[in-house]
């Protein structure tokens, strides 16, 4: 097989996988939230309601799609794709597993291991902002505009602490490549702890997690679409598949963030204390690493859901205050300490 064919297969596979995760996430979110609230959740479409996302999808596809008369047409149409495209594309640098040997060829389970690694994800996140702000603006409804403005301000505010948290990781591992970071996290540290970013950077992890929740627009940071004030925020005027793209993009974003968390702080595909490649064959090792990664990612995805149904949401100024007055100074201090520690240990 030519290289590009392998690449194509990888691209298609991971793309579909990413989407699948998002689709299943919508189901998990509904069922899990229901279970936490002593209800049952959708259980009529297919076994256990598993086909519920499909039904929703069909419904959204066959829904009339209205462009409000006061909206800016072109911008209105551009909004959802602008949001969804970066969201869908961010998976490209996530290392889903170590490597698999198929037909004598060693295949890295990652779409592309580029040397700028997660900076790519950050950059895409920055573009994703436009989808919200333009969508909200183009709808020309006050709720939407306010939602869009809030969304943008919130997203960009939390991008800084996220960047600071990532900076410490870069300081520690000296690379941007997610794969290399994961490789460096194998083994143990101080003799008994897994050599994970989480144990080396607990503060950085917390900052990163909080920022990730904000980036994913999840409670307690779901101000942009805060249902009780701004109806549904920036996508108030959107219906049909345009809305579908927004909702879906959010879930895909969550998947990405969970995956990044796993690879940066939780050793990616590796198991602590165990070296799977020792006793597994090349093929089964690839599959096993893939599943280890998936399980870790699933945990963080579930955490997203879990937290969402537990806590109330912030107010706007509190959210901003938390970002600028708590997280960023913390991040800077953390950076400073890390720099000092690294300096001392080399």
């Amino acid at each position, binding site marked *: 097989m030519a290289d*590009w064919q392998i*690449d194509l297969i990888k*691209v298609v596979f991971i*793309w579909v996988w990413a989407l699948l995760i998002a689709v299943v996430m919508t189901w998990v979110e509904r069922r899990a939230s229901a279970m936490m609230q002593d209800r049952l959740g959708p259980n009529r479409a297919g076994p256990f309601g598993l086909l519920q996302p499909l039904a929703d999808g069909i419904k959204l*596809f*066959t829904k*009339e*799609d*209205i*462009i*409000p*008369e*006061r*909206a800016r047409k072109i911008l209105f149409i551009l909004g*959802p*794709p602008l949001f*969804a*495209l970066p969201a*869908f*594309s961010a998976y*490209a*640098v996530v290392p889903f597993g170590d490597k698999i040997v198929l037909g004598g060829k060693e295949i890295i389970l990652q*779409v*592309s291991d*580029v040397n700028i690694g997660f900076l790519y994800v950050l950059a895409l996140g920055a573009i994703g902002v436009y989808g919200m702000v333009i969508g909200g603006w183009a*709808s*020309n409804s*006050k*709720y939407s505009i306010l939602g869009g*403005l809030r969304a*943008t*301000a919130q997203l*960009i*505010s939390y*991008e800084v602490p996220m*960047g600071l948290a990532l*900076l410490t990781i*870069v*300081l520690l591992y*000296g*690379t*941007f490549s997610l794969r290399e970071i994961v490789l460096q996290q194998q083994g143990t540290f101080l003799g008994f702890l897994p050599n994970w970013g989480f144990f080396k950077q607990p503060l950085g992890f917390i900052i990163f997690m909080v920022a990730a929740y904000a980036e994913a627009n999840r409670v307690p940071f779901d101000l942009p679409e805060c249902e009780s004030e701004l109806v549904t925020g920036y996508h*108030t*005027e959107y219906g*049909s*598949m345009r809305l579908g*793209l927004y909702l879906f993009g959010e879930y895909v974003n969550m998947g990405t963030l969970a995956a990044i968390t796993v690879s940066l702080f939780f050793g990616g595909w590796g198991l602590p204390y165990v070296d799977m490649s020792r006793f597994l064959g090349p093929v089964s090792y690839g599959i096993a690493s893939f599943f280890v990664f998936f399980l870790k990612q699933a945990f963080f995805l579930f955490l997203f859901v879990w937290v969402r149904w537990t806590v109330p949401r912030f107010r*706007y*100024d509190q959210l*901003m*205050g938390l*970002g*600028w*007055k708590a997280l*960023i100074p913390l991040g*800077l201090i953390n*950076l400073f300490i890390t*720099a000092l520690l690294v*300096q001392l240990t*080399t």
Partner: protein
Amino acid sequence: MMSGFETIVMYLGMSFLVIVAMLGASSLLGPYRPAPGKATTFECGVPLLDPGHKRYSVKYYLVAVLFLVFDLETILIYPLAVQYRPLASLGWGIFFEVFVFVFVLLVGLLYAIKKGAVDWR
């Protein structure tokens, strides 16, 4: 072309195609029945009160400026950070470099906080 990036472009292209296909399918499959009042702006069920949008708070601008500056500064540190360990082995120079930089950042942040740029009231 750099190795690795073509697959990313492939991935991007695929996302693009699928999104276009989704929107296209949706507009094909969905009904289209315009009716009076259907396309009016939703304002909790009442007619629009005032036609345009007044100016929103300048606070948003300030947040964006803050973000711009901080984003830029963090990004400028990245090339140093990625090379931190090798440079650190050369001596304390790099540490002070980063320290001064972070310090400047901190000063900017404190100024912004003191000026109430991130207070919403």
